[in-house]
């Protein structure tokens, strides 16, 4: 799997992401600078990592969405290429028009860093094939603005088309407002694009991949992607 991690000024989880991609897929990703206009030839997967691109000063992801490299990312997605956005990356993909909706401030109006439980809603996508549908995974999140909001029509379409990939749930897998950590609409933690080739999610699976450090539930996402490209190739 040939992956490219996009680096905007102020992004700060690019090292975590690169390390995990290397660890799980065995291949070092390319780091792509925001001012570049092209992705490395043969890129399979584009990852927009977490952080605070441009300080999140205007609106999370709004400035990064207009960076030169994003045209290349949009083109890659347009060709059906895979794009993964995590945390600030999810916000950037929403602002770029690659995913619908927006991430608002957490309902409690505070930054939250803690492990949460996600239910994997489907396992038939390149991003989630490493999991079973209905499986509950434990991954950390760290954000101040992860409260997913879209107009009711969009939400209905997302739900109807099965484009909700991950949902915040209680440890037993049941929906529970107490476990919907940021107050997201329908407890949405991650969504897919219409063609299913773009995934955005707020939590950080890349931080839960090493048994020696903690839980490894994040590994499935990267292992699944690696398998996907091994098969494609």
């Amino acid at each position, binding site marked *: 799997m040939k992956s490219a991690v996009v680096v905007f000024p102020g992004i700060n989880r690019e090292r975590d992401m690169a390390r995990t991609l290397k660890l799980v897929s065995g291949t070092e990703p390319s780091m792509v600078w925001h001012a570049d206009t092209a992705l490395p030839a043969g890129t399979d997967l584009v990852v927009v990592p977490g952080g605070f691109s441009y300080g999140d000063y205007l609106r999370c992801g709004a400035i990064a969405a207009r960076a030169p490299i994003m045209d290349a990312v949009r083109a890659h997605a347009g060709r059906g290429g895979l794009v993964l956005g995590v945390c600030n990356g999810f916000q950037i993909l929403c602002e770029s028009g690659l995913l619908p909706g927006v991430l608002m401030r957490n309902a409690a109006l505070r930054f939250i860093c803690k492990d949460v439980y996600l239910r994997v809603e489907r396992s038939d996508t390149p991003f989630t094939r490493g999991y079973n549908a209905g499986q509950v995974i434990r991954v950390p999140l760290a954000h*101040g603005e992860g409260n997913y909001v879209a107009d009711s029509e969009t939400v209905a379409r997302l739900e109807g088309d099965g484009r909700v990939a991950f949902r915040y749930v209680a440890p037993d897998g049941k929906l529970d407002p107490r476990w919907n950590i940021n107050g997201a609409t329908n407890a949405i933690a991650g969504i897919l694009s219409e063609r299913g080739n773009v995934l955005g999610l707020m939590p950080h699976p890349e931080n839960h991949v090493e048994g020696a450090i903690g839980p490894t539930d994040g590994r499935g996402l990267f292992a699944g992607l690696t398998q996907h490209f091994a098969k494609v190739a």
Partner: protein
Amino acid sequence: MIPNEPPITAALVAEHGLKPDEYQRILDLIGREPSFTELGIFSAMWNEHCSYKSSKVHLRNLPTKAPWVIQGPGENAGVIDIGDGLAVVFKMESHNHPSYIEPYQGAATGVGGILRDVFTMGARPIACLNALSFGDPDHPKTRHLVSGVVAGVGGYGNSFGVPTVGGQVRFHTRYDGNNLVNAMAVGLAEKDKIFYAAASGVGMPIVYLGSKTGRDGIHGASMASAEFGEGAEEKRPTVQVGDPFSEKLLLEACLEIMAKGCVIAIQDMGAAGLTCSAVEMGAKGNLGVDLELDRVPCRETGMSAYEMMLSESQERMLMVLKPEKEAEAEAIFKKWGLDFAIVGHTTPSKRFIVKHAGDVMADLPIKELGDEAPVYDRPYVETPKKPALKAASVTPPMRVPDALEKLIGTPDLCSKRWVWEQYDHVILGNTVQRPGGDAAVVRIEDGPKALALTVDVTPRYCEADPYEGGKQAVAEAWRNITAVGGKPLAITDNLNFGNPEKPEIMGQLVGCVRGIAEACKALDFPVVSGNVSLYNETQGRGILPTPSIGGVGLLDDFTRSATLAFKAAGETVLLIGETQGWLGQSLYLRDVCGREEGAPPPVDLIEERENGDILRTLIGEGLVSAAHDVSDGGLLVAIAEMAMASGIGATLVAAPEDTPAHAFWFGEDQARYVVTVPADRAEAVMQRVHEASVPVHRIGVTSGETIVIPGERPIAIKVLADRFEGWLPAYMSGAA
């Protein structure tokens, strides 16, 4: 030659925080009246915050050397060797005064400043910690301050991208008008690639990097060198505004140009901004500095030399570059979108010359600016010793289970989850032990080595007996590192006190420093960096003496670190160390009995060392399943914390006959740890501890979901956990 507008009057001198005799010293030094800009420069260099004039004579007694110390106090941060060609760079610094006036920005820039100190030396920050002290929860400002400070600490660290892995939060009415924000940063560097402040070479370009200079933070350091009177809020313009985004860019750009070999010397612009950084670079290198202020990137037009020299705008650096690398360095900074300007050069003259708009605004002897700052051996009176409180004289107002349930939900002992969940503590993927344990454990790169990090101090002990309190702060940091299995290496100290011009306050400082020095010597735990914050007083009322100790230790293998949670039912619970039942200055005495009395528990440093060394050995050999140091709240609170972390309870033995039960369970005797071991190994482990001549007692067995003490009702872990986790969120939402 030097334009003097406005004229220097006695009132103007006083406004600059300079005493008449200090002003006379300036006149004697330069042989003429200073210009307005020069007066500003002197006030910046000679205030308490920058010159350490009241504490210097005492700080000299701190041990600062060990074979693993690469750089002790005096640089931006301390540096220690951790083997494998790597060094750890760390320091703690206060941002108390600004955080009271403007909690979010005050705290945020505190974090920003300490991060800059660390990466200035060429280290990539890998962890932050902090120690926060707030006023009485019932004080009308406390909630606002907690909310703002925590958001500010998180806002900066989270955005910058460093995990905030540990700290302390306490409440006491003596912090009502002066909350404390002590921020610590820890970075990792290659041992032979540490960068220092001393300039070298004549005619070398001095480069200004980072954000533009604005009118914020002017006189920030002077503000932090005075007491608050009425209307402290009016000092808001002296508080800087943080920009973590710029700081992150500055970090990446600095590390990149350092890696490219462009840098001769580097100094961050912290307190007293351009003045302090330029003077330090020159003075340390025995060189003069010429500054051309017309080239300083400014955020606003029409800034005077005075304003530029005293601005504390954040996220700025000063560097001496290798001339041949100038273009390369500039390209890197442009790439990161940061300002880059050559604002001066080094000279052989040992003068500090500041030019602006064709005029020489300052022309001062550079060495003397720092070296000739006044040093005071201020008069002090030792804090009178308090008599030890006899446990028998304390009548327990309630049963032991009731006292535990009360204590565990008090502001000082309750869970600080509400705070640390606002800090990103998992970024970088190396946090092995998250907040909530004895010490945070952070893996170094891909391991197996890891750092154990902690911040500790018990201000009520320091107030009652500064010497013992100083010792205890160091011992507790050492103990917390030991309890996770780390070898304690060095500390950074952040000494927070009231007005040093009062002999009683000075007595606290002197006593604490003496105690810290004693403990550091006995435990081989030298001080490599630090900061002093005085004048933490409002309308004549000072804070509790609060010498925060930030400790750094090393684990050879992070997979062997110990955690405090019980691991399984049926394991033997052991208590290492001796228990007499010391109730003086205990939380039990204060929060259950409503009395703040007696001498604090004495710290026997030989005992500390022996008890800790054997525990570390046991952990290293994988013989114990859980370990926790006994501190605030005593033995039963330690056990409760181990139970709550796991959901597993314990059936305990009765208190020994010669010790009153409440004193046994809640006394705060030092040098103690609770550990668990599988039952079949208990005898062998106890034997090992005995062989080290360390007392160890079997105090129970892990079991069930309650804590059971003979003759008392069982205490449900669930009830404890609800109280433990409940108070702070309820308080912050206005319900408690």
